[in-house]
């Protein structure tokens, strides 16, 4: 009964996703189709996906289906288990919310030169691709679904293709996605070499040599890391996210990166046999570098969506740090703590999906209304767009890992995992793990600084540009979508025990190690190891914060009468006695990041240009000041520029055979024929 219900739901999920794609094909002729059919169907697909995920997690439904498609000797296998269910749930939530957000947001494309059909068609395909990746249970189905996801998202990144920069970003994305896919394919190749089959069931029982297992691990790390955005394979991210439409960025950053993480977790914990602590060390290093690099680059960007994209890189780094902890402990016979690490990782996966999608949807709203990508032209939006401002604030608080919001819970669990380092045998690991935790703390604090900067510059202060001064609140659909995600951010922060119980189903099925201690003391207390070791009560802290707000409210009510008599006096702020505080006197985003630029100056390649024109009468009075700052990603310089040059040189060598004489080409054919004949004879 439950199984058949699940099957129906999966069918409904896929059908409505594909249906959304198909309906959108009509959207160029009838724009209302997108609003009234395509997006509702997408939302439906998301809800069905969420329901399937809930069934898998709460009821423990596991299903294996074999469909008569694909190669004659290899039918498509699909399988639903708690891990797949968890990721299906994440895909479902974000897709459903995007389905609500989309109708209002895509209005702005109706008058534009771009095809609405393409947008709807590829969005549906993209979502279906991601759902199938998570469900796939053999290498062939996985790769097909993976490619559908990659190619559909390529078209979405390239959606506003009239600008050359966007086409370039999309091409970079496609190139890296394909290289990543090849690496994953090679990794599957190793597994099938040892198991003589392409199904994941065979992969699970395959016994790899240590050397081959390490090679498979490396390939998986590079392949999935390229999609997830591990440094230095992250360069497509800050290019692709800003140019895609915002709801697509939300899907890509919130969900697609997680699908890559899913692939890696599946590979690591499900297929690869006994884990090795060296892998843990590799993951810790990769994660730490990615996290610090991502947040430092996010800190100096001025394009709102680029900040968010680099912040995604940072969060992927945090997830990999958690996975590294998990592998290190599991490999050292400390299974309970290892499970705690995996729970922290999955918790952060959920959190990042929620708050990063929220922030991208917020960014979409802000950019639509202020017509600006650049932080330096925003300001004062909280007065023009109060609701968006509130939701953005929730997103910023969550991503900055502050209690009692959700980002803090996963960070706290990670620290608790790290604190169990004395349980390890190896002294070196005991010393390394706290250092990684300190790096994580640095990352969290820098993220807080980064999002104070983003929020303070864009929403607070005085408007810096004409558009920002006239911005209006966005339409209802967009607000509901943002509000839902903000509410979920608060909820997952407030009730960590329930989320941990849900994730516990995943880790239980994956590692067969129940985690009961964490939730034993009721919904109020989260106690990962034991109550004496550490406990955290998010509801009580939230109560404290709410009481502070209530105090403000009481004062406000209490003074209402006296305020009516003489209203709160408004004065000019302190302007140093010069008179007239203009918006140009405010701190800019660049100025805000300047101390960080000083402290961490070797991280970036900064190109600064400062020109000042002095008054001709008074040599000390500047007439005009101009400061330009350009940030280049060092990864380009270190990795991509040399590789690019090498490829170019190689292709120049090969290009010599292009002589332009038809006789030469005939000679090539002739020679090839002779060689082939010689080979087969």
């Amino acid at each position, binding site marked *: 009964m439950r199984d058949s219900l699940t099957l129906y739901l999966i069918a409904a999920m896929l059908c409505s996703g594909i249906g959304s794609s198909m309906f959108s094909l009509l959207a160029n002729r009838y724009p209302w189709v997108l609003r009234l059919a395509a997006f509702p169907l997408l939302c439906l697909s998301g809800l069905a996906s969420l329901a399937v995920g809930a069934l898998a997690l709460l009821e423990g439904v596991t299903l294996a289906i074999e469909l008569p498609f694909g190669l004659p000797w290899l039918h498509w296998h699909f399988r639903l288990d708690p891990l797949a269910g968890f990721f299906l749930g994440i895909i479902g939530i974000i897709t459903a919310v995007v389905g609500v957000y989309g109708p209002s947001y895509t209005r702005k494309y109706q008058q534009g030169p771009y095809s609405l059909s393409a947008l709807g068609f590829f969005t549906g395909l993209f979502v279906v691709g991601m759902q199938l990746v998570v469900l796939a249970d053999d290498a062939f189905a996985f790769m097909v679904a993976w490619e559908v996801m990659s190619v559909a998202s390529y078209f979405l990144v390239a959606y506003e293709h009239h600008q050359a920069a966007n086409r370039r970003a999309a091409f970079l994305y496609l190139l890296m996605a394909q290289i990543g896919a090849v690496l994953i394919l090679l990794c599957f190749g190793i597994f099938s070499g040892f198991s003589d089959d392409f199904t994941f069931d065979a992969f699970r029982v395959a016994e790899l040599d240590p050397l081959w297992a390490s090679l498979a691990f490396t390939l998986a790390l590079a392949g999935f890391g390229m999609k997830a955005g591990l440094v230095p394979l992250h360069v497509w991210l800050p290019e692709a996210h800003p140019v895609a439409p915002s709801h697509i960025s939300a899907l890509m950053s919130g969900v697609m990166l997680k699908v890559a993480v899913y692939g890696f977790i599946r590979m690591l914990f499900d297929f690869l046999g006994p884990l090795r602590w060296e892998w843990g060390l590799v993951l810790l290093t990769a994660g730490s570098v990615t996290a610090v690099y991502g947040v430092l680059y996010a800190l100096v960007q001025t394009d709102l969506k680029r900040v968010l994209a680099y912040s995604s890189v940072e969060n992927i780094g945090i997830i990999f740090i958690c996975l590294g902890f998990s592998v290190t402990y599991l490999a050292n016979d400390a299974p309970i703590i290892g499970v705690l690490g995996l729970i922290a990782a999955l918790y952060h996966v959920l959190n990042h999906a929620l708050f990063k999608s929220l922030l991208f949807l917020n960014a979409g709203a802000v950019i639509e209304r202020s017509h600006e990508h650049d932080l330096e032209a925003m300001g004062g939006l909280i007065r023009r767009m109060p609701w968006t401002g509130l939701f953005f604030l929730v997103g910023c608080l969550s991503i900055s890992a502050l*209690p009692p919001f959700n980002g803090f819970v996963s960070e*706290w669990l990670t620290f608790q995992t790290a604190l169990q380092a004395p349980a390890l045998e190896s002294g070196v690991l005991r010393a390394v793990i706290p250092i990684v935790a300190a790096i994580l703390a640095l990352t969290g604090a820098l993220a807080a600084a980064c999002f104070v900067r983003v929020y303070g510059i864009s929403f607070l202060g005085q408007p810096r540009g004409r558009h920002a001064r006239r911005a209006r609140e966005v339409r209802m659909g967009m607000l509901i979508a943002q509000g839902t995600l903000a509410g979920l951010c608060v909820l997952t922060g407030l009730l960590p025990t329930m989320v941990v119980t849900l994730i516990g189903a995943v880790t239980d099925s994956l590692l067969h190690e129940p985690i009961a201690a964490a939730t034993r003391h009721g919904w109020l207390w989260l106690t990962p190891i034991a109550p004496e070791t550490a406990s955290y009560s998010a509801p009580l802290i939230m109560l404290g914060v709410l009481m502070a707000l209530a105090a403000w409210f009481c004062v406000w009510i209490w003074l209402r009468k006296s305020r009516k008599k003489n209203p709160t006096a408004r004065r000019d702020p302190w302007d140093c006695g010069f008179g007239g505080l203009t918006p140009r006197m405010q701190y800019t985003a660049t100025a805000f990041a300047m101390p960080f630029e000083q402290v961490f100056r070797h991280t970036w390649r900064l190109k600064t240009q400062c020109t000042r024109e002095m008054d001709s009468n008074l040599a000390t009075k500047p007439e005009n000041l101009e400061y330009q700052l350009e940030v280049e990603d060092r990864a380009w310089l270190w990795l991509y520029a040399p590789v690019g040059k090498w490829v170019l040189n190689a292709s120049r060598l090969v290009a010599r055979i292009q002589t332009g004489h038809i006789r030469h080409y005939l000679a090539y054919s002739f020679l090839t024929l002779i060689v082939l004949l010689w080979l087969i004879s």
Partner: protein
Amino acid sequence: MVDLVNVLEWVFALLQMALFVVAAPLFTAWIKRVKCWLQNRRSPPLSQPYRDLRRLFSKQVLLAHTASPLFRTAPYLVFGTTVIAAAVVPLIALELPTARIADAIVLVGLFGLGRFFLALAGLDVGTTFGGMGASREMTVGALAEPAMLMVIFALAMGAASTNLSTVIHSMLAQGLALRPSLLFAFLALLLVGIAETGRVPVDNPATHLELTMIHEAMILEYTGRQLALMEWAAQLKLMIYGVLVCNLFFPWGIAQTLDPASLLIAGGLLSVKLIILGAVLAVAEGLVAKMRFFKVPVFLAVAFTLALVGMLSFVMLESAS
């Protein structure tokens, strides 16, 4: 019966929190008094901060034209988060139920939450100073946090717990021992505390010199009760760090049961410890000059190094079984 005890404990915990909040201005006044003595000045009475607070609370609130609702709620949030932090720290008694709400890491997070709103409030009005203060505060905070976490690790790995109450318990249980990890963690926590509470040499709480201030720059636009809350929160934060230093490293005398005699002893001993700590802080502030802002990272790097060596010496020297 069990419930009654529980209720009593909660009531006592709330009373202790109230004591914390009420006593905070006194600690600041004491430091100021010692400083005045050292500088051969006549000091204001110890009740001066209370009078200042009362005056500010009764004054009219003025708002900038550009202030948003966030600006008006921020003082309440900053004060509220600091009070929650105070509830978590054991003052004179251990094993109170409030100590279980949050451990040392959550404490750092709560300070982070307060700082977040403080910095946003600084940016809200749109003056140069507010932005400057916010930017500097976030820089100092970002660099202090890893050092603070290292201190917590050095302490928590020894006690196998991050719960402050349990950590203090294990300190009491081990008796007198000379442990390098504690020595370095102590020094590092002092440095981090100085940076986080904006004391000399990182920030000067007495200055309104425009280009050097950090904390004062952010609250420059506040008046009346909002300013009072911000000032009080800052004093409370200083007191929390003072109590942390005293109770974590010199916990002797803290009440382990809730009978009046031991509570009284605990209160008296804590006062003595705080008086000494305040005097030391005042003398230290008299000896050093405020440093350039770009020297602050070096200061915090020293704190981090000390904490790192503390953690490493725990792992290398003390954890062998």
